[in-house]
């Protein structure tokens, strides 16, 4: 199963003003965690803790021991600042429309759009 064949992957970490994507070749069967360690991104950003920061591949959370496929982009995420419940509550209090997950969002968005156009 294990073959010495190398596959290209990327390791990415994003800050609001500066995003880093490191491309590297790893042997087949490399895990998410190994790729992150190999990429040297931990030395560049000491704030990353591979035990605490969640990691994933192309927008999907992945376990640290998941093995990579060619051209995967391993992503290191940062936690949210806001509490989603609080943000939604605040918006509801301000009377702003909610889209997905905001109850009768279709009717609300349709009426506001109509109002904006006229």
């Amino acid at each position, binding site marked *: 199963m294990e073959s010495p064949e190398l596959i290209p992957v990327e390791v*990415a*970490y*994003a*800050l*609001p003003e500066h*995003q880093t*994507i490191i491309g590297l070749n790893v042997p087949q069967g490399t895990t998410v965690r190994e790729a992150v360690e190999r990429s040297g991104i931990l030395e560049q950003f000491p704030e990353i803790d591979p035990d605490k920061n*969640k990691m*994933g591949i*192309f*927008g*999907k*959370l992945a376990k640290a021991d998941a093995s990579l496929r060619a051209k995967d*982009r391993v*992503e290191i*995420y*940062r*936690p*949210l*600042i*806001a509490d*989603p419940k609080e*943000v*939604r509550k605040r*918006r509801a209090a301000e009377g*702003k429309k*909610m*889209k*997905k*997950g*905001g109850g009768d969002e279709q009717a609300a968005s349709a009426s506001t759009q109509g109002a904006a156009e006229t």
Partner: protein
Amino acid sequence: MLTAVLALAGLAIAFGLLLGFASVRFRVESDPVVDKVDAILPQTQCGQCGFAGCRPYAEAIAAGEADINRCPPGGETVIIALADLLGVDAKALDEEVGAEKPKMVAFVDEENCIGCTLCLQACPVDAILGAAKQMHTIIERECTGCELCIEPCPVDCIEMRELPQSPSTWKWPYPQIHTSDDAAKEGP
């Protein structure tokens, strides 16, 4: 008389075989015009032209179903390049599809992001880094400025920002071109 007929028939057969062989031997897999048009388009995959992406628009242009002036991100540069390639006259950008804007990139307001992944799903070029209940961040270098992520955001936390000018992005300003439309508007 007979020799002439035979000679012409022989030539016809010879050239027919040659053409038949050439069509098999030098077969082109996809329409080369589509590839050339696609190469000119800016690959923002924004859908402002009314097609699903740059490639479908290129196919429509090559098939003569769509006009060449429906790409706002490409603007005049793309229209002129397409006109040049296809041997047609360049024209002004179709007003129906919007106006030419400076290159912008999306930016997430981190105070409000709730990690819903709706913008990730809308992004046609995977330029957003994030996952469920994790901070979403735009990868500036990969963002094409298509604005498709703005509408799905339930908390309106994505805004478009103009790219700051740097030595690597600075360009000579384009010369002002006055078309006959402008002259008509300014005229008496």
